[in-house]
Every structure is written in C-alpha cells, then in structure tokens.
C-alpha cells in the first residue's frame, strides 16, 4: 500500500507536530506550564483536545471494523461514552478544576493524611495509562506497517520517539496543541470522506442504506458474537465504556489546563458534540459505505475472504475506493496524527503520575524542587517511552479492542469509585479508599485474565475460569462495597478534623458557583 503521497503526508504530520513542540518548548518553563499548560487553554480548545484524546485510532477504526463485520457492539461504543461525559460534567469536571493543579491523585490525596492513598491512586493511574498505551502502540505498529510498508518494530520505535519529544520538551502545551490539530484534521478528514461517499450515491443516503442492508443480508449469514448477546455483558461493557471514561487519567488531567470551572464545563460540552458527530458519521455513513461498496470486490480481500489488514482497515480501504491513493494517503496521515496525539496524552499522564505523585510527593515527601521534579519528569517520559515501545513489540498481534477494554475496565473499577467517593462521601476513610481501590483493581484485572480472551485465546486453556470478558458489573460494585464496608468498620478514623476537611473541600470544589 506504500504510496509517495502517503509518505509525503506522513512527513508533513511529523514536521508540523515537531514545529508545534518547538513553539511550545519556548513557552514551557515552570512546573505549572509543564503539567497544565499554565491553565491557559480555553474551554473550546480543551474540548477539542478532550475529543482528540478520546477518539483514538483504535476506537475510530475499531468501531467501523466492528460494524463492517456485523457486530452490533459498535452502537454501544458510540452511545456509552457520552453517558460518561455527562457524569463527568455533573460530578467531576468542576471539583477537579477547583481542587487540583496537576494530576488526579493529588485531588484524591487532599482528603487523607499520609502517602498511601496518593501512591495507590498514582499506581492505578499508571496501570490504566500503560494498558491504553500498549493498545495504541500495537495499533500504531500494525497500521504503519500496513500503510507504509515499514517493519512493525521500526514503526513502534518511530511513534515512541516522537511521543517522547512532544512530552519531554513541549509538556502539556505541546500535547494539547498536537491534540487540537489532530482533532481538526480528523474532523475535516471524516467530513471529506462523507462528502465523497454521498457523492457516489448522488447524495441519496437512503440509497446508501438500502445497498448496505442488502449486502448485510448476503454477507452476515451467521450470528455474530459480541457483548450484546447477553444482558450481563451488555450492561457490564456499557458500564466500563461509560464510567471508565471518568477514570481515564489522560482525559481527567485536561481539566487542569483550563483557567476556571466554567471553561471546564464548556470543554465537556464541546467534546461531547464533536465525539458524537464523528462517531455517528463513522458508523452510519462510513461503515455503511464500507459494507455497501467493499464486499464483493475481491481486490480488498485475501484468499481466505478476510479484509486485507483486518476489519479495522475497512475505512482505509474505503478511502482508497473513494479517492484513490490521494485520499488513502490523507486518511493514513490522519490516522498517524491521531495515534501520535493520543500516545502523547497518555505519556503525559504516566510521566506526571511518576514524577509529581510518586517521586516528588511520595518518595521525596514534597521536598523536591521544581527543577528537580522537571528533571525527573523528563526521565519518567524516557522510561515510559522505553516501556511502551518494548511492550508494544512484545504484545504484537494482541487484540487491540481487548487491551482498550482492559484499560476502561480498570479505570471504571479502581479509579472511578475512589475518585467519586473521595469527592462526595464524607464517611470515606483512608483504609476504605485503599482497600476499595485495590479490590477494584485486582478483581477487574483478575477476571479479565481468567476470562475467555486471555485464559482461552492467549493462554490456551480449554475453559475460562470466568465466563465473560467484561468484569465491570462485578468489579465496580465490589470496589464500592469494600470501600463502604471498610470505612464503616474503620469507625475510629471518623473525627471532627476529618469532617471539617471534607466540608472545606466540598465548599471549595463548587466555589465557582458563588
């Protein structure tokens, strides 16, 4: 698939993002600028960046790929995250903006003395971002290998090097502007493909739907397996995709980049609108077009009848059909920009947890100087890059959707309950937060490992120990229940100073209302 146009566009993406990084690096000196872009980002800009953070290559190509293979789960992937953003709007955006400065663990840690809760929350954030990062690296390697003919490992190394440069030199400002640029390019690319698709059916979307439905009758003859087949899996995946969004550190830390609560609220509304528009177009125009136009054309399928490069490549093949090598080059470049932007956001969150929470606050007990912390931040960025590249190579061929669902499940089961209880429940004790979070983390990862996707498909045992790939419906309530019960039993920890601290924080969390 290698084409000079695609290579030229890839180079344009790389040069543009490096120029953004150079511009940002000149404006990034202090800790606040590194972690939170000096809180100088507007609500609309942050909304674009949040949309960019959420719309990863694996999510976008994955949704179209699911629909292309007749898997109705695609609908859940579009609808569920929007509920998460509503919950974020109601409960999380303002308190985070008003209480925190750089990272999510510091907001949770405000409630408790000692370093345990902060260390745990930082570790849970790291687990989530690393799982998500592996998924992006695996996706990046596979995509670039297919699109440019570059070897998988080299593709992973190139992506890792670029993400390290963005984050280590440009900090949050570069990451945000790379993300904003990517979101705009992605929206333009999706709209361009929509126009070309509709022009092929004389702008009659009804005709596109009838052609696609007719193809569905022919090609989707057997029942597809997916989460929607059982009520348990439907609800469990729905919970993970919706509330998991509220526990993704790289999305949450975006609220520190805006100046006030009003801009934080605006960013969510902007992000929701953009995500909904792009996802709806991808599912109901592009995936339908892929079903209508690609099936029956042997040049897009291998000898076994499988789409070349896998179902995730449906949109890329469609672009080639609609606009030849030029459009395919554009789509490939947009995908590349998407990957770069998302991995930069994830690296920012991981390095922030390592440098600010684990090193500066837990290890150095707040005694680290700003310069020292920024040095550690750069080293942490390098470490995260090396780990991500190694794991990206090691996990080559692993199901990307599964890795993403792993990140969402852990975020929904470990991060979300602790964050919500810390913000809103007066009775939460340090022990309750620690045990609840640990139970959520261990049970969600444990059930995922014991489920069919790892126990049977990866470890090759005959029967899974846990019958589903979707643990959130059990793991999240278990985490909440453990935190509640432990806090109630931990009666000695309830005292007047703790209550006063909660009241002060609750008032401060909504101070923008006054």
């Amino acid at each position, binding site marked *: 698939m290698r084409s000079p146009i695609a290579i030229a566009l890839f180079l344009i993406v790389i040069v543009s993002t490096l120029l953004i990084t150079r511009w940002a690096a000149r404006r990034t000196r202090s800790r606040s600028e590194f972690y939170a872009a000096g809180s100088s980002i507007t609500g609309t800009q942050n909304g674009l960046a949040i949309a960019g953070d959420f719309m990863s290559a694996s999510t976008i190509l994955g949704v179209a790929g699911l629909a292309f293979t007749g898997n109705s789960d695609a609908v859940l992937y579009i609808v569920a995250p929007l509920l998460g953003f509503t919950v974020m709007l109601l409960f999380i955006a303002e308190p985070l903006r008003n209480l925190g400065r750089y990272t999510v663990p510091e907001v949770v840690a405000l409630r408790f003395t000692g370093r345990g809760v902060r260390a745990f929350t930082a570790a849970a954030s790291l687990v989530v971002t690393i799982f998500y990062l592996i998924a992006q690296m695996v996706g990046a390697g596979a995509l670039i290998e297919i699109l440019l003919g570059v070897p998988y490992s080299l593709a992973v190394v190139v992506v890792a090097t670029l993400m390290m440069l963005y984050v280590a030199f440009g900090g949050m400002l570069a990451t945000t502007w790379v993300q904003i640029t990517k979101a705009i390019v992605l929206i333009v690319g999706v709209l361009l493909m929509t126009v070309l698709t509709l022009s092929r059916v004389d702008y009659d979307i009804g005709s596109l739907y009838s052609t696609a439905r007719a193809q569905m009758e022919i090609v989707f003859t057997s029942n597809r397996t997916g989460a929607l087949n059982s009520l348990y899996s439907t609800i469990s995946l729905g919970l993970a995709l919706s509330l998991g969004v509220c526990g993704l550190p790289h999305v949450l830390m975006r609220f520190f980049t805006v100046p006030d609560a009003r801009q934080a609220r605006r960013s969510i509304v902007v992000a*929701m609108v953009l995500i909904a528009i792009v996802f709806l177009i991808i599912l109901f125009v592009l995936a339908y077009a892929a079903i209508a136009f690609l099936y029956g054309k042997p040049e897009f399928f291998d000898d076994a009848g499988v789409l070349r490069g896998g179902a995730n490549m449906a949109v890329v093949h469609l672009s080639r059909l609609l606009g030849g090598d030029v459009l395919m080059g554009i789509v490939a470049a947009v995908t590349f920009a998407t990957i770069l932007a998302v991995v930069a956001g994830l690296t920012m969150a991981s390095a922030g947890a390592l440098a600010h929470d684990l090193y500066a606050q837990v290890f150095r007990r707040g005694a680290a100087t700003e310069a020292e912390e920024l040095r550690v931040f750069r080293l942490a960025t390098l470490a995260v890059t090396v780990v991500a590249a190694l794991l990206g190579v090691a996990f080559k061929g692993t199901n990307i959707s599964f890795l993403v669902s792993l990140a969402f499940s852990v975020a929904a089961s470990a991060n979300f309950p602790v964050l919500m209880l810390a913000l809103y429940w007066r009775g939460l004790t340090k022990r309750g937060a620690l045990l609840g979070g640990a139970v959520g983390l261990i049970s969600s990862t444990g059930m995922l490992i014991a489920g069919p996707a790892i126990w049977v498909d990866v470890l090759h045992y005959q029967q899974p120990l846990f019958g589903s790939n979707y643990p959130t419906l059990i793991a999240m309530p278990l985490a909440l229940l453990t935190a509640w019960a432990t806090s109630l039993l931990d009666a000695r920890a309830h005292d007047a100073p703790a209550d006063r601290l909660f009241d002060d924080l609750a008032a401060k969390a909504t101070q923008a209302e006054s």
Partner: protein
Amino acid sequence: MADESSESMRRARIRARVCLLLAGVSCAVFLFFLVLLNRAVQQDPLAPLRDVRFSVIGVGINFALALGSVVAFGYWRRLERTRAGR
C-alpha cells in the same frame, strides 16, 4: 465568616443532590436503553446496525441530559447570584 462557610456548604450540598438526581435519571435511562439493545439483538443480531434510530436515540438522550443539566445549573447559578446581590 461562619455564615459564609455554612452558606457555601449549603450550596455544595444542594448541588450534589441535584447532580445525583440528574445522574440517577441518566443512568436509569441508559440502563433501559441497554436492555432494549439486548432484547433487539436477541430477535435480530443486526437490529442495532440496521436501525439507525437506536444510535440516534441513545446519543440524543445523553445530549438532552447533558445540555439540560448545563441549562438547569446556569439558571440556578443566576438565581443564586440574584439572591446574593439582594
């Protein structure tokens, strides 16, 4: 000083309760949507893909709730400001 503090506490408490109510409604509607999706798939595995209304309604409900919350809180804030002004 103490009055100011108890006033902000009162506001925070009311706000948390209203948010809880709105989130409860959102989650209940979402749960109902999930059950509908699951039932539709039992009848026809491709139903959610074939029928665009599933996604449009799902997305629409979330938008209505999110934007409704923004408008409702905006109104509440205006009321609070007017009261504080008096």
